[in-house]
């Protein structure tokens, strides 16, 4: 059975070119870039090229890139640095729909470190209210941390605008850019954003590698303290294969940005239209316009998400769900709840996230299977039909 991978917001296939670029550093070229000898020193040059490629993708200078172990480390580094360098400011502004990497860190800071966290709400399309954002950021704000694009719905937030508001009030601006990097062209140099976190495995490189963009002139305190690597901003011997792979993936992403906007988006729109046309009582979660080109989150009423995933899985189709049952927690997705998605469809929400490796045949197969799956589950469900409710109506 051929696998159809539509879960790229969770993780993505390593690009073959990225793997090829990494291999020498897992085999013959094991030198330490900090070494004085040629064997190590030549590796440092490959790290430098990777840094340039990533900087180009973001529209920044290579010296503004710090390689880390991934998105979570980058988020922690940015937020904790901003707090440490603004000791007189005790407030954090963030949203209710952040990834756990930011959400749980902020909860932790509120609970154990005495910070005040202002949680911004979203409307039913998943958008922020700029008036509310404006009211929340003050001269007491140390850091504003707002994701650029939401991982579950793909909804894009106006972080460039928010960064300007933060700058006016002397607050630092961090954005979790894990989902947006490589999908939308960015030119960070021209913005007031101080920090951006990104993760390698979301853009077709390996797991365990990520980066933090740190705007030149931003006051900074390292998270990992040790050797002089990364210009004294992140101690620890470089993850050279990861860095080289991420550099290659960034180069490919820069070339593929047009494809994301055109071909990937067309496939996503085809999937969306195909499902909405053939399945009744289905609705898209999140803004239709203001959204990543690869993401589609659909709520199916009267059925439960894990059941849908199991049926998809049997056909080799990989997707994910905001249902409670898939997470190990009992509550459905915090993002969909924050948007006020009706309880009739919140448990039956499925996220498809595409990549440039998907094909039209794959999408058509999913479009063909979805109504069958939903119908079979609805036939089993006690809801969604003329319901002689309440026990003991028959006796």
């Amino acid at each position, binding site marked *: 059975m051929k696998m159809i991978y539509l879960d790229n917001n969770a993780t993505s296939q390593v690009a073959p070119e990225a793997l090829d670029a990494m291999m020498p550093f897992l085999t013959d070229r094991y030198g330490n870039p900090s070494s004085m000898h040629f064997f190590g020193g030549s590796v440092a040059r490959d790290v430098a090229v990777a840094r340039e490629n990533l900087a180009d993708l973001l529209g920044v200078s290579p010296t503004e890139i710090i390689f880390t172990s991934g998105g979570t480390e980058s988020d922690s580094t940015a937020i904790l640095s901003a707090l440490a360098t603004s000791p007189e400011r005790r407030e954090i502004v963030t949203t209710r729909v952040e990834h756990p990497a930011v959400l749980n860190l902020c909860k932790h800071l509120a609970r154990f470190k005495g910070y005040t966290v202002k949680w911004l709400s979203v409307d039913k399309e998943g958008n922020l209210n700029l008036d509310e954002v404006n009211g929340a950021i003050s001269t007491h704000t140390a850091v504003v941390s707002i994701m650029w694009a939401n991982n579950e719905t793909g909804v894009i937030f106006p972080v460039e605008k928010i960064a300007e508001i933060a700058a006016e009030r002397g607050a630092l601006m961090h954005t979790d850019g894990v989902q947006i990097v490589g999908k939308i062209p960015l030119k960070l140099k021209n913005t007031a954003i101080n920090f951006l976190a990104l993760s390698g495995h979301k853009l077709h490189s390996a797991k365990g590698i990520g980066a933090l963009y740190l705007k030149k002139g931003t006051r900074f305190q390292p998270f990992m303290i040790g050797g002089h690597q990364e210009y004294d901003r992140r101690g620890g011997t470089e993850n050279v294969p990861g860095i080289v792979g991420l550099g290659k993936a960034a180069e490919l992403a820069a070339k593929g940005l047009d494809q994301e906007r055109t071909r990937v988006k067309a496939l996503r729109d085809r999937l969306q239209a195909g499902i909405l046309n053939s399945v009744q009582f289905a609705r898209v979660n999140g803004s239709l316009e203001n959204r990543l080109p690869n993401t589609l989150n659909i709520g199916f009423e009267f059925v439960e998400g894990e059941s849908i995933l199991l049926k998809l899985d049997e056909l080799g189709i990989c997707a994910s769900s905001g249902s409670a049952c898939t997470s190990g927690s009992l509550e459905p997705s915090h993002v969909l709840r924050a948007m006020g998605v009706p309880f*009739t469809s919140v448990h039956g929400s499925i996220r498809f996230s595409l990549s440039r490796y998907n094909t039209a045949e794959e999408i058509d197969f999913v479009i063909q299977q979805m109504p069958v799956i939903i119908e079979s589950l609805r036939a089993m469900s006690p809801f969604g039909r003329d319901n002689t409710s309440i*026990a003991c109506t028959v006796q």
Partner: protein
Amino acid sequence: MWEYTEKVKDHFFNPRNVGSLEDADAIGEVGSLACGDALKLYLKIDPDSHKILDARFQTFGCGSAVASSSAMTEMIKGKTVDEALAITNQDIADYLGGLPKQKMHCSVMGKDALEAAIACYRGEPAPKDHLDGELVCECFGVTDKHIREVALENRLNNIEEVTNFTKAGGGCGLCHDKIEKILEEIRGQLKLRQSTVDVPPKEMTNIQKIARIQEVIDKEIRPSLQKDGGDMELIDLDGSHVKIAFRGLCSSCPSSALTKAGIESKLKELVHPDLVVEEVMA
């Protein structure tokens, strides 16, 4: 990804007894769309033998909820309602070769729907949505009574297990203190059950009953009386009347009436609920 057994997968992908019964003699409904899972159970019951002739279900929920519903209907068909009621949620989980621990509430849902349907058949008020008792978990609408029942039956020890089995405490977490209190209350009872005395069989002859009463007295009661310089002796069993005599300091102790009540409740729990303790001079 959940580690589901082959049996769970089989009952999810090929569920048995899906659907409704037009001429059902009983319907049991638990759960809701808001909670994320719900089960509606239809039973056809023979009025003379009280045997379950047919069972059908409709389930909204995850893979293990569907599988638990399917397994439960297979297990109860052909059984009398009394036999069906003896099935525990653990039996349902065992039938499926086990469930992931976070999914045990699915088997509880199966058991609850069965109880609701049989209550319906008997004309009793349906124990619908566990509305009996005081509301503990507001997120999932779970009462103290339901938590206590499930915790006792499944010997649950901590909040996480309570959440896995009942969902209580799985939302905002504000009720964790209340759940902890319930667990503390029942821990004493659980300790007793886990003690050297096994759970009694349902039907016992008089001799078996006497032997068991003697065992409970020797293992559970006398040691604590002896610590205070007292003692007791089993004199006779007359029907359900257990005749005992106090010895040592107990015989002159003014609070022996309290002691007697304590002995009675222990015997009721560990031997038979109908037992009454009487003090005699012997």
